[in-house]
């Protein structure tokens, strides 16, 4: 069995400590977290959605899902890497400092990557870029020789294609 990336969407009750329960389970059982995104999605029903990208073979991924579902405040877990295709996006804020030719080149690449300029000074830019993880990584790498100061990435938000909700309860 081969290791693959899997994007897990986890619907939880938004209560104190719930994120610690989920990520604590990953570290306690030796599972890897490559990306983690969490935010409240519905204040009325008081639910949050945690999106985790992890790596493992089929057996490990199944076990991770079963362990997560066992946590009391968890509603459901869905592996978005299975079945119908999913859409995954990540956003990053990328700060680049420089003058002259490098500054022009940074701006041109940002346009090519459809990044927005959200802050500009005479010697720096902050770009907002959205896309698949690989695209964001590629953009950040391109900025390195052009004066990359730092990048802040959000982690992945993901949902399934089509009209169905990911979590149907």
């Amino acid at each position, binding site marked *: 069995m081969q290791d693959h990336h899997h994007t897990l969407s986890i619907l939880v*009750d938004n209560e*104190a*400590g719930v994120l*610690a*329960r989920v990520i*604590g*389970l990953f570290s*306690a059982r030796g599972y890897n977290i490559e990306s983690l995104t969490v935010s409240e999605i519905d204040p009325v029903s008081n639910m949050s959605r945690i999106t985790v990208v992890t790596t493992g073979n089929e*057996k490990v991924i*199944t*076990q991770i899902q*079963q*362990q997560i*579902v*066992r*946590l*009391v*405040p*968890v*509603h459901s877990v869905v592996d978005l890497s299975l079945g119908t295709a999913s859409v995954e996006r990540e956003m990053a804020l990328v700060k680049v400092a420089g003058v002259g030719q490098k500054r022009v080149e940074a701006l041109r690449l940002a346009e090519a990557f459809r990044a927005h300029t959200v802050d500009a000074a005479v010697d720096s830019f902050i770009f907002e870029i959205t896309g698949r993880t690989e695209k964001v990584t590629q953009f950040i790498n391109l900025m390195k020789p052009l004066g990359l100061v730092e990048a802040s990435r959000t982690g992945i938000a993901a949902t399934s294609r089509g009209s169905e909700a990911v979590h149907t309860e």
Partner: protein
Amino acid sequence: MSMKATGAEIILLALKDQGVDTLFGYPGGAVLPIYDAIYQQNHINHYLVRHEQGATHAAEGYARSTGKVGCVLVTSGPGATNAITGIADALLDSIPMVVITGQVGTPLIGTDAFQEADIVGITRSCTKHNYLVRNVEDLERTLHEAFYIASSGRPGPVVVDIPKDVQFAEYVYTGEIVKSHKTYRPITDGAADQIAEAINLIKNAKKPIFYTGGGVINSGPEASKLLQELVELTGAPVTSTLMGLGAYPASGDKWLNMLGMHGSYEANMAMHDCDVMICVGARFDDRITGRVDAFAPFSKKIHIDIDPSSIGKIIPVDVPIIGDVKSVLADMIKLWKDGNCSQGQPSLDAWFKDINSWRARRSFDYNKTDDVIAPQYAVERLYELTKDKNTYITTEVGQHQMWAAQHYKFEEPNRWMTSGGLGTMGYGLPAAIGVQVAHPDALVVDIAGEGSIQMCMQEMSTAMQFGLPIKIFILNNERLGMVRQWQQLLHGERYSSTYSESLPDFVKMAEAFGCLGLQVSDPAKLDETILEMIDYNGPVLVDVLVEKNANCLPMIPSGAVHNEMILEDVLADTEVSDAGKRLV
């Protein structure tokens, strides 16, 4: 019923409504209001232990021997951290337990206050669930929910951390008991198609075997009866893990004894050779499977478990059945009878011929001499002299535990309390206290080692205070025997820190606590000493001086396969692979 009450009173009302009449605990600053409320009521008996670890193990013994939820009350900080070992023990052995911990007042949380510890954080990975109750309005619901979660599905420990100001605050108590939860919904009924597939496999099996575990015990006495019925119907032999002993009677003709690392030759050989394995409420623990890639290589595997995460965790199975053992076994029996499955079932004669040849190796036999007591002999005599009484056995952890499992024969569930998953030395004495509290007229014996007993020996004082006539039966070999055995096998006989020098005089120690202390070293005097222990109306400690270097056999060395058991005392010649050494 709705009444105004303080948080402390709400706790006691909720416990009463949950049918709790017994608490094991230890007071302290952060639980003073609860202890004050205990003082002013008559429904709940509080048993004061001498160390909070003792409270948790006592609650485990109470729970394991009754099927009820064990309850613990301890203070914040060190009170709660001392309880951690017993909480982790209850998690690994799936024991229903509710632990109420006091916490510093909510304004002080996070300030490194006196006796403050982040107990919800510390216990997150060793509880089934835990709560910090910041508002008295949430207290009643949280407590009832805690009992529901602890006792339903796969049972386990639940911690409820209650700040001191919440204990003082007032609110309305309603008495509405929670029996459901919006996200926690254990599955109890097995899927019909999988049960049908399982029956189809069993009725065509030539070499079937039941491999049963603690889940049968947890499912209640009814589950054990159903197991016996299904074993009779199918004619298949049955073996059990350490945790499942007693679910099928040791006197039954299908009984193969315990399996696993120190299990019987017949059980392990049958597991290796079987063609259909029916795993009932067990979880393919590493002490059971030996080398995973060669575990029962010729078999189709059926796995009945209430916890979906147990399925396929270690060993891939062919027919997973998620559900409560009792419910699934009842369905299987019905299906077997309705389908008249005994007709046309292949003959199991050849299978039992194999089994009988393995039984003939008599793998639990040991050397008996007239001048020194063999530890196995001590357990055997204890069994013979207590088997007709209303007896409950607890153990500590180590060689004595395995010898107890091998040589004490259990006919019923809930009679055997031992720390299986976590392997906690110090479990047996406080567990015996919990069992004795639940069964005041029973004979409760802690089979112990001289090493383990020193880990919670202070609880002899608890036994004295509450008039609990427990019996502590120490197999004293003056060595940490199980570790010594591994050092002999794996580490070139370099006995690093396994000889307990300066052992206490156990007889004097017992007397210092006010218990009766006895010592025996002559095999000829063993019986009379055991009888004296049984007849004494009060707590007794018996120091049985046994053969010092006996090894616990048979055994499957780590990293070996079931059919590679060591039977005789030839440990020093056994080669263990490096991979195997890492598995120890």
